[in-house]
C-alpha cells in the first residue's frame, strides 16, 4: 500500500487553445492540498485526469497506488469526487439517491449519512429539483462522504455557496481528515477557503504548476517590504525578489524568500526599510501568478 494518495509525473494534456504542461505533483495520505488558480488555469482538467474522465496525452498518473486510466475502476471505489458543475437527477429524491449509492458501495455508512442529513438540514423526501444551490451542493457532498472514500477530489465545491453553507461544508471536510489515511485535493479560486483547510497549497496558472509548498512555508517566506530610496537610486536585484515597483522615493518589494539578511542587504544598498508586511494567501497567489507570467513572457 502506497503512502501517496496522488502521484503525477510529467503529465501533459493539449487542447486547441489550452494545454496542461508537464505537471508533477504528489499528495501524501492524510493531507489536504488546496489547488489554487485563476479561471481557466487547468484545475478542473487536472482533477478530471485524476478521475480518468479525460486521459493525459503524456505522463504517469497514479491515484491511491493505481495507474490511471488503466485501473480507474479499482481506484474509483475509494475516491469521492465532487465538482461544482455536477448535478443529481432532478426528479429523484435525496432518499432515492442515497439508496442508489448505498446499493453500490458496501462501505456506505448509513448512520453517518443520517448525521450529515441532520447537520446539513436536508430531508430524504426532498426532490433534488426543489433544492437550492447550497442544499444541492450539500446533498452531493453527503452522497460522496457517506461512501467513506479514502481520497476526496473536490473541484470548486464551494463556488456559489453562501458563507454559512461554505462554512458547514469546510467543517465537514476537516472532520473527514480525522482519519489520517484520508486525503483531500481541493480546487478553488477562493484563497480564503483554501487557507482555512489546506496543509499544502499548489498554485496553477495557464496549465503549469507555478508553486507548491505547505501553507506555513508560503506565509513565512512571502513578504512585502516598503522602502524609501534616495532620488535617482535604482534598487539592486536580490535573490527571491519577485516584484519591485517604485514611485519617486517610495518602493515596494515583494519577495518569496524573506529573511533578515534581505532587509540588511537593502539597508546596506542605501534604502531605508520602513515596513515589512506579511501577505495574505490571496496576495501571495496574485503575486506568484504575476511573477510567473512575467518570467514566461521575458
Amino acid at each position, binding site marked *: 500500500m502506497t503512502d501517496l494518495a496522488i502521484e503525477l509525473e510529467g503529465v501533459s494534456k493539449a487542447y486547441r487553445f489550452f494545454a496542461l504542461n508537464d505537471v508533477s505533483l504528489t499528495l501524501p495520505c492524510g493531507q489536504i492540498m488546496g489547488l489554487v488558480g485563476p479561471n481557466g488555469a487547468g484545475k478542473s482538467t487536472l482533477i478530471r485526469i485524476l478521475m480518468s474522465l479525460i486521459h493525459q496525452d503524456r505522463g504517469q498518473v497514479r491515484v491511491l497506488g493505481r495507474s490511471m486510466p488503466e485501473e480507474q*475502476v479499482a481506484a474509483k471505489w475509494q475516491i*469521492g469526487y465532487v*465538482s461544482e*458543475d455536477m*448535478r443529481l*437527477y432532478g426528479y429523484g429524491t435525496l432518499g432515492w439517491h442515497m439508496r442508489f449509492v448505498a446499493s*453500490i458501495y458496501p462501505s456506505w455508512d448509513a448512520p453517518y449519512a443520517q448525521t450529515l442529513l441532520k447537520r446539513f438540514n436536508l430531508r430524504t423526501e426532498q426532490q433534488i429539483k426543489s433544492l437550492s444551490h447550497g442544499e444541492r451542493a450539500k446533498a452531493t457532498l453527503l*452522497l*460522496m462522504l457517506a461512501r467513506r472514500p479514502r481520497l476526496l477530489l473536490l473541484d470548486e465545491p464551494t463556488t456559489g455557496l453562501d458563507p454559512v453553507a461554505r462554512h458547514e461544508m469546510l467543517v465537514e471536510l476537516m472532520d473527514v481528515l480525522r482519519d489520517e489515511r484520508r486525503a483531500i485535493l481541493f480546487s478553488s479560486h477562493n484563497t480564503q477557503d483554501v487557507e482555512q483547510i489546506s496543509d499544502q497549497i499548489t498554485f496553477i496558472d495557464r496549465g503549469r504548476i507555478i508553486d507548491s509548498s505547505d501553507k506555513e512555508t508560503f506565509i513565512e517566506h512571502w513578504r512585502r517590504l516598503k522602502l524609501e530610496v534616495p532620488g535617482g537610486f535604482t534598487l539592486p536585484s536580490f535573490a527571491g525578489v519577485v516584484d519591485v515597483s517604485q514611485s519617486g522615493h517610495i518602493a515596494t518589494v515583494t519577495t518569496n524568500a524573506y529573511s533578515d539578511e534581505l532587509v540588511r542587504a537593502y539597508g546596506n544598498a542605501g534604502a531605508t526599510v520602513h515596513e515589512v508586511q506579511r501577505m495574505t494567501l490571496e496576495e501571495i497567489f496574485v503575486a506568484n501568478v504575476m511573477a510567473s507570467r512575467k518570467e514566461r513572457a521575458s
Partner: protein
Amino acid sequence: MNRSVVTRLILKDFYLQWPLLAGSLVLGFAMLAIALFGGGPITFYVGSVSFLCVLILLNVFLVSGTVAQEKKDRVMLFVLSLPVSTTQYAVSKMVSSLLAFLIPFCLLGAAALLVIGLRPIPHGLIPLTMAVMMYVCLYFCIFLGVALAGDSALWNTIVMIFGNVLLNFLITWLLTRPSIALASKGPVAIWSPEILASLAVEILGSVVALAAALWVIFRKKDFL
C-alpha cells in the same frame, strides 16, 4: 463486482424511464384502439399516423431526455464518480436505452399487427408496416449512437430533423414501388425483394450505427 455496478446503472435508468415507457405504451395502445374501433378509413388513418408519432416521440424523448440531457446537465459527472469506467457508463446507457425502446416498440408492433389481423384490412399492409416500423428503429439507433458518442447538440438536432423528414420520403418511396403498392392492397402479406431489401438495410443500419458508436466510445480519450 463491477458487473453488478453496471447492472445497477441499467436498473437506475429503467426506474427513471418508466413513466416514459408507460406513457408511450398507453398512448400507443390508445392510437391503435382508435384505428381498430374507429370504424372508418379516416379514423384508421388518424390512429395509424398518431401511432407512428408515439413511436417517434418515444425515440426522441428517450435519447434527448435521458442520454443527451444527462450529458448537458452534467448529471453524467455524478454517475461517473461511481466505480465505473467511461466505457462501462456508455455501454450501460446503450443497453438501458435499447431495452427501454425495444420493449414498448415490440409490444406496440405486435399490437399493430394484431389490429391489421382483426380488422378487415388487407394483410398485404403487414410488410409495409414492418418496413416503416423498422425505419423508426433505425432512426432510434442512429440517434442513440450520435448522442452517446458525440458531444454536439447540433448533431443531435440534425439527426432528429433528418430522421423525421426521411420517414415521409421512405413512405412515399415504398408506396411508389409498383410491387409494394400493389401487394399492400392484397389479402396476403407478400415479402417482395424490395421490402426485404428495405428491412435488411434498416436492420443492418441499426447494428452498424450502434457498433460505430461503441467503436468511437472505446477510442475516446476525453469523455467530457
